């Protein structure tokens, strides 16, 4: 465990906690960006450069911007008077703590069977491209179809009310 791991872990978890706990919704979106950046650093540290840069492009470049736009369009940055957490927040907290307890217990119990330090895998973008165009070409086409359908669907869903008002 290097010191870089602990630093990135602290950054990511702090970003995630802030994204969930802050009152102002815009601040939550910015904290979410910090958490995404921490995860991208994790990917780079795990020698998955392509996934790390894809994470930066897709999440920080697109999803975070989309979230900020949605917040501004819905005027969600105004803090409601009766608190930001739902009435039965305690139940949700207990469920989340229970899930973390089970997952953490499972990881710590299986620590001795998990593999130790292995050789650094050398993966070039050429290999990833060959795999995407060869073995994984069918999933790639399905994802392309899904993205097209999602784009058209999002536009239609967001436009619907305006058309019926005419």
């Amino acid at each position, binding site marked *: *465990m290097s010191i870089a791991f602990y630093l990135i*872990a602290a950054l990511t*978890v702090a970003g*995630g906690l802030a*994204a*969930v706990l802050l009152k102002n919704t815009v601040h*939550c*979106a910015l904290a979410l960006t910090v*958490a*995404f950046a921490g995860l991208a650093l*994790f*990917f780079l540290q*795990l020698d*998955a450069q*392509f*996934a790390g840069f*894809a*994470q930066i492009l*897709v*999440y920080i470049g697109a*999803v975070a911007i*989309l*979230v900020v736009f*949605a*917040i501004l369009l*819905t005027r969600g940055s105004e803090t*409601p008077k009766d*608190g*930001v957490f*739902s009435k039965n927040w305690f*139940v*949700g907290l207990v*469920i989340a*703590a229970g*899930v*973390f307890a089970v*997952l953490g217990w499972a*990881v*710590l119990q*299986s620590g001795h069977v*998990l*593999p*130790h*330090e*292995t050789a650094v*895998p050398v*993966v070039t973008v050429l*290999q*990833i491209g060959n795999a*995407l165009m060869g073995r994984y070409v069918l*999933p790639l086409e399905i*994802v392309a179809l*899904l*993205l097209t*359908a*999602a784009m058209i*669907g*999002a536009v239609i*869903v*967001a436009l619907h009310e305006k058309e019926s008002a005419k």
Partner: protein
Amino acid sequence: MTPLSGYLIVAALLFSIGLAGALTRRNAILVLIGIELMLNAANLNLIAFWRYGPHPEALTGMMFAIFSIAVAAAEAAVGLGLVISIHRHAHTTDLDRMNRMKG
């Protein structure tokens, strides 16, 4: 503690934070943010298992993570479009006040 279990613990912590956010926040956009955090924690697991697994040159976990990122982007676009549509209809994004399915 092996490096892999460190990554798995961080991913479990992030997943739980996202789950807590999705279950306790009232704003629909914040619920989507929680879901995004959960998806990212799963991606971290996939990449960590790929890195420390027996055959990293097969690229299985990496491909899984890349496709998962693409699906999560589609999910975010549709989810936020739905939130905007609901806001236009009901003039609220408060989930506690969205208690009718009929318009």
